[in-house]
């Protein structure tokens, strides 16, 4: 396996962890938020360095140079590949902008320590291929939100119930898989009959679908948005860890027909969540369903296992991560100023926060794949892929997108218009919020106006993933639906 020129992966994982320890030791200080921003910025720079280094090597996967944690982990446990290379900076960016958009007055409620620990866990998860370490990390990542709910004295039953089932399914499924398939190389198992993998595959799929919030296993998500802080809920859901679990644990072992059948469930969830978003009476719940709808679309694309569908899903993954984070932090900024936002009536906040209004609209349009935003090409590819596999059912992507589109503009109108000034209190974006907004705006518009580099890289990743699936077939039958690929130049 190729080597990076610097231990980017391990350093980027350790920096937020050490940062969390440092912040814990500092206690409640005035500048604690600035330190957290500094730590998140450093982590982002490291992950970007990792991406640049990885792209310069021109390989499918690579591990760290000088892996100084090899006394704990095998050197190939933390690996960056074409799938994760872009997700890692995305995760770091999501954490950075969320921390940046935290008001100092809200810092006591939103635990920066837990946020940094979460960042460590999520980065480690995205750097990890199929193994017991990945299973452990996926389970460990569910703990910080639980601790927050506990600290806030909220009922944790719904969350704990779902996450316990998730952990149970994950451990049982992966354990079963190891028993029937023996050592697992990068998630792939060779020469095993599909019927042998059916039960562990089903358990792992159920776990991944639960973590992704696929209907009807989504109630933990609405509950988390209701009871947790908005920041934690955004951080726990927008990186789409459930989709990553599907890619690492399910995609290598599941036959195409099974994945494409599950894709129908994802499409139904996308439409259902789109419809639910439209009738919500409060902004957080609306955001939650919007996220559910979009993450279900990403999942549907991944499960189509055609190069175009996969490329669309991988592009959409990046765009949804960025645009929904932007959309979410704007809502969070508004909540930080006026408390929870009811969508029953019009608030007319445009005059108080024109910049946030513009950003809300822009990120909302990016979410629905409006032309010239980052989501446009991804959505086009996804629709193309879905209609290729299911000519009729595939149109549900378009219906889900239409419903989300109506929701986004409806939310914009409800929050920012429809009423003259109710208050003269200025609510403009603070400098840190403004920087967060501008970073995301540049990425959303830049990715939308010049989409080719991103699409080419995601297509290459999709092609490699499909090739690896073809190189490690789980069964002689039922694989006819995988689209043939031409020889790659890789």
């Amino acid at each position, binding site marked *: 396996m190729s080597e990076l020129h610097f231990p980017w992966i391990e350093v980027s994982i350790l920096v937020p962890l050490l940062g969390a320890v440092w912040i814990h030791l500092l206690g409640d200080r005035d500048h604690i938020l600035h330190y957290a921003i500094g730590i998140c910025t450093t982590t982002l720079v490291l992950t970007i360095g990792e991406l640049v280094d990885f792209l310069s090597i021109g390989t499918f996967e690579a591990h760290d140079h000088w892996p100084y944690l090899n006394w704990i982990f095998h050197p190939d446990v933390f690996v960056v590949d074409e799938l994760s290379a872009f997700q890692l900076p995305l995760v770091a960016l999501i954490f950075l902008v969320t921390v940046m958009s935290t008001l100092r007055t809200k810092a006591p409620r939103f635990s920066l320590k837990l946020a940094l620990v979460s960042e460590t866990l999520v980065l480690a998860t995205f750097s990890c291929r199929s193994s017991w370490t990945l299973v452990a990390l996926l389970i460990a990542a569910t703990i910080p939100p639980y601790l927050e709910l506990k600290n806030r004295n909220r*009922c944790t*039953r*719904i969350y704990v119930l779902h996450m316990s089932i998730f952990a149970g399914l994950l451990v049982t499924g992966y354990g079963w898989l190891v028993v029937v398939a023996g050592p697992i190389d990068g998630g792939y198992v060779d020469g095993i009959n599909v019927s042998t993998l059916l039960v562990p595959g089903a358990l792992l799929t159920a776990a991944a679908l639960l973590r992704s919030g696929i209907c009807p296993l989504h*109630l933990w998500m*609405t*509950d988390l948005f*209701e009871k947790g802080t908005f920041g934690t809920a955004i951080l726990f859901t927008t990186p789409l860890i459930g989709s990553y679990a599907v890619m690492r644990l399910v995609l290598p072992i599941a036959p195409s027909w099974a994945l494409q059948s599950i894709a129908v469930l994802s499409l139904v969830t996308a439409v*259902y969540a789109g*419809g639910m978003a*439209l*009738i919500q*009476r*409060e902004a957080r719940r609306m955001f939650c369903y919007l996220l559910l709808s979009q993450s279900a679309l990403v999942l549907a694309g991944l499960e189509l296992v055609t*190069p*175009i569908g996969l490329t669309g899903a991988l592009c959409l993954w990046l765009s949804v991560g960025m645009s929904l984070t932007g959309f979410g932090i704007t809502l969070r900024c508004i909540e930080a*100023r*006026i*408390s*929870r*936002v*009811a969508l029953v*009536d*019009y*608030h007319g*906040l445009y005059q108080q926060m024109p*910049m946030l209004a*513009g950003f809300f609209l822009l990120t909302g*349009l990016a979410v629905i794949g*409006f*032309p010239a935003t980052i989501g446009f*090409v991804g959505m*086009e590819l996804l629709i*193309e892929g879905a*209609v*290729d596999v299911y*000519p009729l059912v595939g149109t549900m992507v*378009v*219906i889900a*997108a*239409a419903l989300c*589109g*109506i929701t986004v*503009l409806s939310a914009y*109108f409800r929050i*920012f*218009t*429809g009423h*003259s000034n*109710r*208050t*003269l*209190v200025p*609510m403009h974006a603070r400098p840190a919020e403004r920087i967060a907004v*501008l970073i995301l*705006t540049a990425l959303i518009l830049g990715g939308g106006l010049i*989409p*080719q580099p991103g*699409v080419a890289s995601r*297509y290459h990743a999709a092609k490699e993933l499909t090739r690896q699936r073809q190189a490690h077939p789980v069964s002689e039958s039922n694989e006819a639906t995988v689209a043939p*690929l031409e020889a790659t130049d890789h």
Partner: protein
Amino acid sequence: MSALETTFQVLGTAVIVSPLLLLAILGLAPLVSRPLSEGAISRLTQAAVLFALLPAIGILLIMLATGIRYVPIELGNWVTIEEQQFHFHLKFVFDRLSIPFLILSCVLCGVVGAFTRRYLHREEGYARFFLFYALFFCGMVLSSLASTIETLFVGWEMVGLSSALLVAYFHERTNPVRNGQRVWSIYRLSDAAFLIAAITMHHLTGKGDFGGLLSSGIWPEGTAAMTSGQALLVGTLLLIAAAGKSALFPFSGWLPRAMEGPTPSSAIFYGALSVHLGAFLLLRLSPILEASLLLQCMVIGLGVVSAVCGAVMSRVQNDIKVSLAYASLTQVGMIVVEIGFGLEYLALIHIMGHASLRTMQLLRAPTLLRDYNELENKLGSRLPHDALLGSRWVPLWVQRWGYRFGFDRGFMDVVLDKWIVGPFVRLFRFFDSLERRTTDLLSTEASRESDDAMLHPEDMNTAA
């Protein structure tokens, strides 16, 4: 590349880039906290319109002089995945359809821009209006010149968004915002039909290029490279898209609502350009319509129903802008009938004449009472109100029903609300209540904190 081709390429690129630059400048200025003055906005807008219009006229003159009827402008692939034959081709075309529509768009946008400069002088939303106007102008230029279905869709979406936002221009009031939302909802659904049609077309022909859809000839002589059944499927979807955009039956309900926007935007959108975009789409894809007799009958039927409804409704409105909007609908219905009969040139001329007349009428609408006063003063008596020719042979109950039908705007909003929106909302509220019951059951406390959200936390005494 010959000198002539280079000239076409340079001029064509200027036409496309000019509105894009305007949009970029007007959009980025407030984002980086550098708002532009009214004068700067106005000058930039005029320059952008001029730099789009003059090259377009230049291309037209060269085409007339050389006898060239088809000028493609290739800007390369925006996105391409060669191995999968996926291309998002930025290809534009100057032909007998696009040039008149483009020049019409530029001229009317220029006129309305100049009018708005004074009309909205010192208005708080001056910059906002021109930002949405730039988005619209951009959308119109892209739609007019699009040579691929994807490019047309991009322009189509831009026009839709700008339209909804301009309807809600007076955003401190609730009604315009509600109406903007209604317009957007209809647009999104018709856009979905458009998108499905585009993808179906891709799958049937393997191409999104309009040239590829036509087996021979250039507009309007080409014939569709698809069977009658395929044409019926794609054509029906496109007809839904066109009906949504042009407010044809049964989507006409949003048209009077759209009049909540400022008069210049009403003029340019619902009198002149946007309302004709559906007809333009049908014109552009007229070879597909001709491939299926049933589809042609559907187009003619839709046009006739829309025209009749528009005529009835326009006569009984008590608001001049709404009345003019329905009069527009009548004409658009007739244009659709002409397209259905395969009279493409007549339809194109009809669009141009109607758009110009209606823009003038709508821009004059705010001073209508004054105009009437002046007329009556000069006549020395009230203006005569002639009854509709032949109305005395129509039974009274039919007249009354017609009045009610027209005044209630064809009951279209009522029907859509009752049969589509209502059941949809009820179904999802039912799902929501199921979810609530489940989470309440699982939780030891009330599962929804969002129920306690204050209605107006931003009120003076509670904010920040």
